[in-house]
C-alpha cells in the first residue's frame, strides 16, 4: 500500500474544517501526554515507536480502516518507519512531514475582518503552539503585532499583499515563544516597539511602546491605539484597532486569563492583573472584539479557524473575569498554576537579545504548549 506524506498545512486544514482523523502518535508517553495535535474530531492511539520495532501486528486491530490514519513522531524518522511497516501489513496510512517540529512551526493566516476604507486584519494561527500573531494592512502599509520567529511568513505575506511593513509591536516580553518582531523590523526598516517596563534588560534598541501611543496605518489611516494593561508582565500593553478590535496580548484569552508569574513576580503583579481585567477593560466598549495572543484549547477556535470573541461576551462567560472576591482571585492566579512553558527562562533571555541560539536550539526551546494562561 502507498505511504502518503502530509504537510503541517494539510493537517491544519483538517483541524479548522473539523474533519475526522485518526492519529497514531509514536512518541514516548510523556511527550504525548504533554503535547499533541489537537483536533475537534481527532482520535488518538499513542504507542512509542520503540515498542513497534519488532512488528506492528499487535496494533493493527486498533487502527480504523474507514478513517484516515496519520502517523506522527517528533521529527519524522520514526513515523516513516512505522508508516512503512503498516503499509507492508496492507494498511494505507500517511505520516506527518517534519513531525511535531514542523507542526509547532506552522502558521495559518486567516482574515479576521475588513477594516474601514479597504483595510484588513489578519490573524496568524500557530495551531501547534497556540500562538496568535496579527497583521493590520491598509493601502500600502502594514503593522505586525506579536510576530513569532518565522519572519519569512510575515514578510512574504506583506509582499503578496503589496504592503510595506512600517511598524512591528510586541505587546510584552514573551516567555513561551521566541519573538520575530525585532528581526522583521531589522529586515524591513520598520520601527520595533516594546513596552519599556518589560525591556529593562534588553540589549538592543527599540522604540518605547507606551500608553496612548497612536499610529495610523496606510492611506485609510487605520487607527492603532496602545492601551497599558499590566498583569501578565509589568509592561503588558493592549491595542485597540480601528475602534473595533482589542488585541489583549497575554492578559485576556477566550476561555482563560493571563498568568502573572512567568517573570517570577506573581505576588507583585496580581494586583495589576486584577486592575486591568476588572477596571481598565471594564471601561472599554463591550462591542470590541477581543483578539488574544494565544489560545489554549481547540474549542476556543471559531468556525472559520479564528480566535476572536466580543468583549461583552467574555465579561459574561470567561471564568477569570467573574471572580468577585479579590482573595479568591489572588489564589486562583498564584496557587496551583500549571507548569511553566518549556524553557521559558531561556526564551526570555533570547527575547532580551542576551543569547542567540541557532535554529535547532530555538526549535527545542519552543517544544510543547504555550501555557501562558490560568483557568
Amino acid at each position: 500500500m502507498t505511504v502518503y506524506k502530509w504537510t503541517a498545512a494539510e493537517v491544519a486544514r483538517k483541524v479548522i474544517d473539523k474533519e475526522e482523523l485518526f492519529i497514531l502518535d509514536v512518541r514516548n508517553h510523556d511527550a504525548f501526554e504533554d503535547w499533541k495535535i489537537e483536533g475537534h474530531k481527532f482520535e488518538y492511539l499513542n504507542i512509542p515507536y520503540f515498542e513497534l520495532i519488532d512488528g506492528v501486528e499487535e496494533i493493527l486491530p486498533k487502527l480504523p480502516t474507514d478513517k484516515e490514519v496519520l502517523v506522527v513522531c517528533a521529527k519524522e524518522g520514526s513515523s516513516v518507519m512505522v508508516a512503512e511497516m503498516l503499509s507492508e501489513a496492507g494498511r494505507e496510512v500517511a505520516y506527518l512531514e517534519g513531525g511535531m517540529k514542523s507542526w509547532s512551526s506552522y502558521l495559518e493566516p486567516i482574515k479576521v475582518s475588513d477594516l474601514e476604507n479597504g483595510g484588513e486584519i489578519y490573524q496568524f494561527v500557530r495551531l501547534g503552539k497556540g500562538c496568535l500573531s496579527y497583521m493590520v494592512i491598509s493601502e500600502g502599509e502594514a503593522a505586525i503585532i506579536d510576530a513569532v520567529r518565522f519572519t519569512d511568513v510575515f514578510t512574504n505575506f506583506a509582499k503578496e499583499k503589496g504592503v510595506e511593513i512600517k511598524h512591528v509591536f510586541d505587546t510584552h516580553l514573551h516567555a513561551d515563544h521566541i519573538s520575530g518582531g525585532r528581526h522583521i523590523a531589522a529586515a524591513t526598516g520598520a520601527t520595533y516597539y516594546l513596552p519599556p517596563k518589560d525591556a529593562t534588560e534588553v540589549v538592543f534598541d527599540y522604540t518605547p511602546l507606551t500608553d496612548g501611543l497612536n499610529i495610523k496605518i496606510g492611506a485609510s489611516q487605520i487607527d492603532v491605539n496602545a492601551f497599558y494593561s499590566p498583569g501578565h508582565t509589568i509592561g503588558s500593553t493592549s491595542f485597540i484597532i480601528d475602534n473595533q478590535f482589542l488585541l489583549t496580548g497575554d492578559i485576556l484569552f477566550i476561555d482563560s486569563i493571563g498568568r502573572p508569574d512567568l517573570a517570577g513576580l506573581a505576588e507583585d503583579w496580581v494586583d495589576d492583573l486584577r486592575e486591568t481585567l476588572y477596571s481598565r477593560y471594564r471601561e472599554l466598549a463591550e462591542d470590541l472584539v477581543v483578539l488574544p495572543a494565544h489560545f489554549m484549547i481547540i474549542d476556543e477556535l471559531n468556525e472559520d479557524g479564528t480566535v476572536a470573541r466580543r468583549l461583552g461576551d467574555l465579561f459574561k462567560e470567561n471564568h477569570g473575569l467573574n471572580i468577585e472576591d479579590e482573595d479568591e482571585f489572588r489564589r486562583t492566579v498564584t496557587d496551583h498554576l500549571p507548569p511553566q512553558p518549556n524553557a521559558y527562562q531561556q526564551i526570555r533571555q533570547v527575547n532580551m537579545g542576551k543569547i542567540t541560539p541557532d535554529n535547532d536550539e530555538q526549535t527545542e526551546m519552543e517544544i510543547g504548549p504555550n501555557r501562558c494562561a490560568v483557568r
Partner: protein
Amino acid sequence: MNITKTLDAKGLACPMPIVKTKKAIDAIKSGEVLEVVVTDKGALNDIPAWAKSGGHTVLEQKTEEDVLYFYIQKA
C-alpha cells in the same frame, strides 16, 4: 561497571539509535552492560523510556559536549 559492548550511534537520527540499541541488547546476555553513544537529542527521553518498557536498567547516563552516553544493563 563492566562494559560488555559499545554501540556507536553518533550522527544517527531517530529511530536508528533505538533500533540499533535494541539489536545490540538482543546480542548480549542478561546482566551484561551495553554502552550507547549517541548525538540525537531525542535519545535523552527515548532510551530511558525504551529501557523501562523492556525491563532493562539504565545504570548511568551522562552528556559530554553534545554527546550522550547511556549504560544499559540487560534484564
